[in-house]
């Protein structure tokens, strides 16, 4: 399947999951991600997998939980309100250290909001969403091609760390059609986020204990001190993920007059603005986090030593900018650096012209 094909983001992601060996998909319909379950309902039977339309989002995430307990690669997808419903299950999976892939094709909020593209689930995605001290890896593609690669990587990272992984896109990426090349899965494991590392043995799955001692998977730890110990164990894992998995794309940042900082759809629009600004004689760089958790704080802080103008572009009302500020503040006082914000909430999508105009305002 190496010939490039013209495909919709949602469908490409579903195919990528199959390529990564996902054989269990559980979901419940919601716009703008309906092409994911629709595609899975057709393709899963063809590859001998299971497609199940659950009775609710809550049921779907708990089915992923169940499949993960048994050692299977499983996925669910939804859009913002549906992802809110899944948070309890995600917290349980994080507590039980279970792998699993959750796709969020974000739409406008809060509440039922609208079906337009949005990035307003940034806090929910990167700060937990559910209850308790836990983290989920968050991968943020900005093209249909990258949706494919990061979806494949998501399954590997989930297994590597026994942790849920969230792929965060939006209605625009989900609905648009673009050329995509499906990588060979073996090749992707070498060149993608897994970087050729071996996956750990599944010596924890519940597969029937005939001939071995029983195993137990649970998040309820009532013995005095047991939960605190478990939390410290998780903290070590999260620290390792922060060290090993942080990733960002950088274009012309080192000697930029201003760095345009954005992820996902906002970042690809910022790339057009960068070209526009270049034509006007302004050197703009692009800093695009690919992992939102772990966030590339250190690299952005390094850049703040050289560059003192930033423009944050987000399709939300000042969520992502907090991480940019946290990063910059590691190196400089926020009084020494100007960080502008172009925020488009509620389904608004910025144009390159808008970004270029705002960048000029941030410049001296």
């Amino acid at each position, binding site marked *: 399947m190496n010939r490039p094909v*013209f495909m919709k983001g949602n469908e490409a992601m579903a195919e990528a999951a199959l390529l990564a060996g996902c054989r269990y998909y559980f979901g419940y319909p919601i*716009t*703008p991600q309906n092409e994911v379950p629709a595609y899975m309902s057709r393709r899963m039977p063809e590859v001998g997998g299971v497609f199940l339309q659950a009775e609710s989002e809550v049921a779907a995430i708990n089915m992923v939980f169940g499949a993960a307990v048994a050692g299977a690669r499983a996925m669910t997808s939804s859009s913002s309100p549906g992802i809110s419903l899944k948070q309890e299950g995600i917290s349980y999976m994080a507590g039980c250290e279970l792998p699993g892939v959750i796709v969020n094709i974000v739409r406008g909020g809060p509440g039922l909001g609208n*079906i337009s593209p949005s990035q307003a689930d940034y806090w929910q995605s990167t700060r937990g969403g559910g209850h308790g001290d836990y983290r989920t890896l968050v991968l943020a593609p900005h093209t249909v091609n990258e949706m494919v690669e990061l979806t494949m990587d998501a399954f590997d990272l989930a297994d590597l760390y026994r942790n849920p992984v969230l792929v965060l896109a939006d*209605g*625009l990426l989900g*609905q*648009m*059609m*673009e*050329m995509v090349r499906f990588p060979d899965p073996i090749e992707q494991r070498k060149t993608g986020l897994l970087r050729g590392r071996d996956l750990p043995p599944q010596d924890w799955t519940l597969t029937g204990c005939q001939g071995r001692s029983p195993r137990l998977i649970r998040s309820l730890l009532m013995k005095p001190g047991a939960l605190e110990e478990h939390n410290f164990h998780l903290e070590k894992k999260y620290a390792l993920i922060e060290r090993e998995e942080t990733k960002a794309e950088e274009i012309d940042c080192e000697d930029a007059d201003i760095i345009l900082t954005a992820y996902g*759809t906002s970042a*690809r*629009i910022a*790339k*057009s*603005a960068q*070209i526009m600004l270049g034509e006007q004689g302004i050197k703009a760089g692009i800093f695009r986090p690919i992992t939102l958790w772990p966030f590339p704080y250190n690299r952005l802080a390094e850049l703040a030593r050289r560059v003192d103008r930033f423009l944050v572009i987000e399709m939300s009302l000042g969520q992502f900018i907090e991480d940019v500020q946290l990063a910059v503040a590691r190196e400089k006082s926020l009084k020494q650096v100007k960080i502008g914000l172009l925020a488009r909430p509620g389904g608004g*999508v*910025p*144009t*390159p*012209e*808008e970004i270029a105009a705002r960048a000029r305002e941030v410049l001296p």
Partner: protein
Amino acid sequence: MLKQIVIAGSGGQGIQFAGQFLARSAVRQGLEAIYVPNYGAERRGGPSYCSVVVADGPIYAPVFAQPDVLIAFDQRARNQYGALVKPAGLILTNSDLGAQKVEGEQARVVSIPASSLGDEVRPGTGFNLIMLGAFLALFSGIETKIAEEVLKEQCAKKPGTLEVNLQGLAKGAEIIRQGE
């Protein structure tokens, strides 16, 4: 070269089919292309819209403030988008359903009687491919043979529609060539 194209009209006129067809044809021609539909609340008769970006290099932004080209299937679409088109751009309209000039329109307007031409092919079959045939004749970056190939693939699920669509495509191109 980078062309930002809006195709707009009403649900049931085959806007999304036309947009996908244009983007697929561009890609088959070796160009870069993206197609962005409107989605979720489609209904027959309601406004329908899609955007297509075609370029000979990488395409980043899938959104834009001012299109280079508007292909307006009816007056409502022309009213909504006509004035947004860049002054050096192109507005292709269906004179049967959208002949009225809109205030603020600065781009060159090419009008073809697409609905009547569609009825000449076969009454009641629509005119989306007439519009696209005309656009491809004006754009000239995509070969007819390639467009026909893509159309064949896109009609594979409903083979009965291929012949009228091919005829529509040819008729749309023909009316432009006659005018030149």
